[in-house]
């Protein structure tokens, strides 16, 4: 489903601040793969997501999603196939627009609607939005005409998750999307994520700083360091792995200890 072949990106080339953020990253995700990514500070996890989503064009390498070459596609075109959630719950929704209007925008992603500029939200669509909101179990289905700015961070993140998956994307990118929420809300959003990914059989990449989630969620665990994927665990090899064992394997792969203050502080 997702193929990255030798993706490289260097920021500020030719200056003292030159930073090689991605170094020939190659990764193949099968349809329905759910991979968790962990790694050191500045390992290139978010940069990798930005390269896939098209926030910038990679310096070298090719990106293919479901057989389509994405390498030179602009960000907004990739967004038709890629759903994205960020750590900051404020980034995914328009605060001065109502819940219903936000969902209507997210629904634009379907090719069918792409040309229908002057169409309005129909009653069936409103009912569809209401049903989908009810699945979040947060009472948002009764607040559809309220501006999103009135919602809590957790509610906004759940809404963003719904918006990203309302039209099931080919790829879902989750960049520590529960990290800014309080523990109970984070748990709730994470379980919603599991439900939605399972329901639509989504192919999904998730950055996390929680080592337990990295092993418990999905079917693959990737570890990044210095712009490279240093460990790719799946299947038999991954089953029954403990956090201690994972850290030892990381040391073996990267040649140093995992250096991520968030991970160290989260236990």
């Amino acid at each position, binding site marked *: 489903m997702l193929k990255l072949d030798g993706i490289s990106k260097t920021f500020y080339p030719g200056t003292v601040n030159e930073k090689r953020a991605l170094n020939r990253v190659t990764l193949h995700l099968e349809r329905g793969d759910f991979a968790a990514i962990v790694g050191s500070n500045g390992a290139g996890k978010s940069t990798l997501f930005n390269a896939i989503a098209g926030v910038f064009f990679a310096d070298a390498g090719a990106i293919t999603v479901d057989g389509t070459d994405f390498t030179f596609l602009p*960000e*907004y075109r990739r967004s038709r196939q890629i759903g994205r959630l960020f750590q900051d719950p*404020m980034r995914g929704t*328009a605060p001065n*627009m109502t819940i219903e209007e936000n969902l*209507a925008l997210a629904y*634009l992603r379907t090719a069918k609607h792409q040309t229908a500029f002057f169409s309005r939200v129909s009653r069936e669509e409103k009912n569809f939005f209401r049903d989908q909101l009810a699945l979040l179990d947060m009472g948002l289905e009764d607040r559809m005409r309220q501006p999103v700015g009135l919602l809590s961070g957790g509610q906004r993140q759940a809404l963003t998750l719904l918006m990203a998956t309302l039209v099931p994307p080919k790829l879902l990118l989750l960049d520590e999307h529960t990290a800014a929420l309080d523990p109970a809300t984070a748990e709730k959003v994470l379980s919603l994520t599991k439900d939605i990914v399972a329901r639509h059989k989504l192919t999904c990449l998730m950055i996390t700083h929680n080592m337990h989630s990295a092993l418990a969620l999905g079917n693959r665990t990737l570890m990044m360091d210095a712009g490279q994927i240093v460990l790719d665990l799946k299947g038999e090899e991954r089953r029954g792995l403990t956090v201690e064992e994972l850290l030892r394997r990381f040391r073996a792969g990267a040649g140093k200890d995992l250096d991520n203050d968030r991970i160290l502080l989260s236990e």
Partner: protein
Amino acid sequence: MLIVLQGALEQGFLYALVALALFLSYSILDIADLTTDGAFTLGCAVSATVCLAGHPVLALPMAVAAGAAAGFVTAFLQTKLGVPSILAGIITNFGLYSINMMVMGGANRPIGLKNQTVFTLAQGAGVLGGWAKLAVAAVIVLAAGGALVFFLGTRLGLSIRATGDNKDMVRASSINPVFTITVGLCVANALTALSGGLVAQYMKSSDINQGTGMVVIGLASLIIGQTLIGRGGMARCVAAVLLGSVIYQLFYVAALRFNVPGEYLKLIAAVIVAGAIAMPALKQWAGLQKRRHAARRHRGGER
């Protein structure tokens, strides 16, 4: 008195289109679009010139098209060529001066008594008597306002609103912000030029300085309306803009009535706009002073 009120209503409606344009560019897209002054004059120039050629009704869509083209230039400069948005408007505005001179073939172009305008056509129909001008202004502005409310409820309109609200989210929802900003600025400047086109026919003249300061007058109307009616749904916002414009023109006409020179009113408009936009900063400053004062008193008591 009734005549004064009627004049204020007529002008309030005509200039309301500028306030509507700024509602779209400033409030919704969050762009300070300084093309406004030039686009207004462009509307005046095109409308007067086409009127003189004997097509007062055709003059209005032509003014609209000219304004949209001006908006497109500003949008192109800022979205594709990386010119900062305020500067893009200033540059277009500056260039429009020459274009407006070219369109008018000089610094002004009076519409002769013999030439028809949409207002004289309505008066000629004779049904509405003295209210014909007001009726024309009201019908056009209410139609434009209604169309804008409808437009902002469509998917394209929602995309434009989201672009001003959260750009990150817009890109992640597969909307091209370059496209939405371009459409938004084209529509806004089309409205501004329509206002200019109507005003030229209403005043029976077009002048190179007719649009000067229009952006501040429009913002003042917008702010007056939003202060009085508040924000809410799109229909409410548009109604607020219309009311704000009428109130501003009432002030203007009343001031003229009391022999305040018209030029002084620009200062009042400037103060209204600067004051209203500065309000949050002033409130914060006042709050900080209060806390400092309280803290100082508290410390003084301990000593």
